[in-house]
């Protein structure tokens, strides 16, 4: 059932665009399609506004940033997951394999404990996420190389250290105010997305994705194993470094604005592989489109399913895991 022809892959990109358009109409404040088109067009064409200011606020300050950021995060996590699964030659790898989410989670919790200011939380999450990956990388280096197995193991070590530190922060946090804030943050949500979040988090994520896309064919070579890649003239250390830096930039930025969102980076690459095959040259763009669509869909559910928002991290697993189980049964593995 794999799609081989290029137009079919291009068609995949219509999915997130269509979903994004539909997402504007969801929410407590009703907006008609015509108004939406006119409001959006008014930014480019000279259209006299005959709609209330509230409409513009809802569209540009609330729904647009949330839609764009959600798509960006979904795309970023999916592309990073696909790149890491290729590089580690392991279908069970997700973008947090090197400890980035554990580090970022600890950083955010520490930020909440110390100040509670959203800029501080974001900065702490970002820096500790990057720190965790840097530690994993340094620990895994032997004889100027970073064997894949060593990377995975040191990622586990660093991840568990930061999980323990996170527990420590939770343990000492004030149980009435700080602890719930930490717990909710860790569940992941886009509810508080502002324009500022979009401006600070989207550019590094887009840069990271572009970096991964630019070396996507070479990830095929990495997936043949270190030795085979080197004998084919690949500077494996440089290439691995680029992939790790890009994935970390994407994942740490994503986690720092929306908390921990699991499953996207693990499942979407599998869905992509079932649709377009294992070649990373096509798989990465396909994962990008699928990831953007998936997180947008989940976020729409998160904000409309009940009157209170459901945390994203819960929904990605509750919807994603059974779907993944279904796909696994249907394709008997898919990557084989």
């Amino acid at each position: 059932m794999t799609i081989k022809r290029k137009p079919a892959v291009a068609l995949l990109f219509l999915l997130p665009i269509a979903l994004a358009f539909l997402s504007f109409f969801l929410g407590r404040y009703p907006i008609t399609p015509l108004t939406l088109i006119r409001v959006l067009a008014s930014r480019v064409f000279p259209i006299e506004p005959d709609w209330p200011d509230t409409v513009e606020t809802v569209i540009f300050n609330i729904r647009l940033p949330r839609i764009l950021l959600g798509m960006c995060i979904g795309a970023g996590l999916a592309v990073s997951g696909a790149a890491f699964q290729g590089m580690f030659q392991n279908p069970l790898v997700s973008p947090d394999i090197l400890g980035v989410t554990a580090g970022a989670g600890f950083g955010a919790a520490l930020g909440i404990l110390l100040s509670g200011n959203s800029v501080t939380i974001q900065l702490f999450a970002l820096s500790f996420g990057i720190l965790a990956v840097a530690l994993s990388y340094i620990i895994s280096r032997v004889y100027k190389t970073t064997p894949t197995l060593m990377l995975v193991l040191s990622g586990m070590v660093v991840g568990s250290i930061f999980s323990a530190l996170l527990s420590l922060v939770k343990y000492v946090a004030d149980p009435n105010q700080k602890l719930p804030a930490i717990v909710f943050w860790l569940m992941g949500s886009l509810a508080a997305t502002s324009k500022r979040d979009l401006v600070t988090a989207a550019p590094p994520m887009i840069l990271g994705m572009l970096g991964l896309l630019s070396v996507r064919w070479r990830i095929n070579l990495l997936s043949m194993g270190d030795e085979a890649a080197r004998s084919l003239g690949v500077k494996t250390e440089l290439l691995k470094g680029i992939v790790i830096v890009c994935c970390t930039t994407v994942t740490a930025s994503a986690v720092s604005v929306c908390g921990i969102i699991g499953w996207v980076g693990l499942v979407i690459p599998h869905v992509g592989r079932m649709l377009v095959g294992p070649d990373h040259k096509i798989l990465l763009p396909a994962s990008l489109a699928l990831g953007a669509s998936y997180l947008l869909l989940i976020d729409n559910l998160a904000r409309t399913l009940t009157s209170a928002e459901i945390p994203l991290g819960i929904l990605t697993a509750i919807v994603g895991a059974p779907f993944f189980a279904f796909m696994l049964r249907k394709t008997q593995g898919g990557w084989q």
Partner: protein
Amino acid sequence: MMAPRLCLEDGAFSYDGRRAIFSALNLSLHSGEIFCLLGPNGCGKTTLLRCLNGLLPLATGKVVLDGQGLDSLNEMERARRMAFVFQEENLLFSYSVLEIVRMGRAPHLGFFASPSKKDTQIAEAALETVGLADLREKPYTEISGGERQLALIARALAQEPEILLLDEPTSHLDFGNQMLILETIHRLSEARNLSVIMATHFPEHALLVSNKVALMKAGSFVAEGQADRVITAAALKDLYGVAVEVVSVTNGDGATVKAIVPVLRESSGVEPQAA
């Protein structure tokens, strides 16, 4: 006499700096030559091939490629001149055979580039050469062991190298596929003047295709030279501890070829009782 394509001068290697895997090895490979490395498991054949390819650094000595030290060439330059066919590649992802072969174009492509139409044509020609043209769209994980080995040889050919290093290309294969691989290697070395170094477990294969043979034992060459002179009953007994007879057979074309007949040792166990 032409200058050798590939030379190893006084090479030694050790993983831990104490125990040498091999030491004081000299080797030279000329254009169009097939050089076979014979030796028991663990004698250092594969390590030697890795050092020749630059995958492992020599402790002492140097590898010289067409008069240039291997150290002075970068990975891409090496891969354009020398290709390594690995023993087996366990793949997780089911790339198509063509995609696998296309990876051989990597040393000819810029860092951010992916294979062009021309690269695909070169890959297809390589598949044609090894007789796998029909399998181009098949997943690599679904073809037979012999076909995989041929696909890896095709990938090496797509690198357009002058030197081919093969690590036990015929181990895990059935009799027919062993001969198919040997014929392919022989044909390539004749038709394209490829120089080949091949590690093998089969002395017969060395007799069939090679110009030169080195017998390797515990990290050094115990004998080196023309295949039919080096591969003797005494040498094989010394190398593998197995009694053999080397016999000459006249084949259908009237040519004399050597064959190796192992002799079973006296059983030390208890004979089963006759019923």
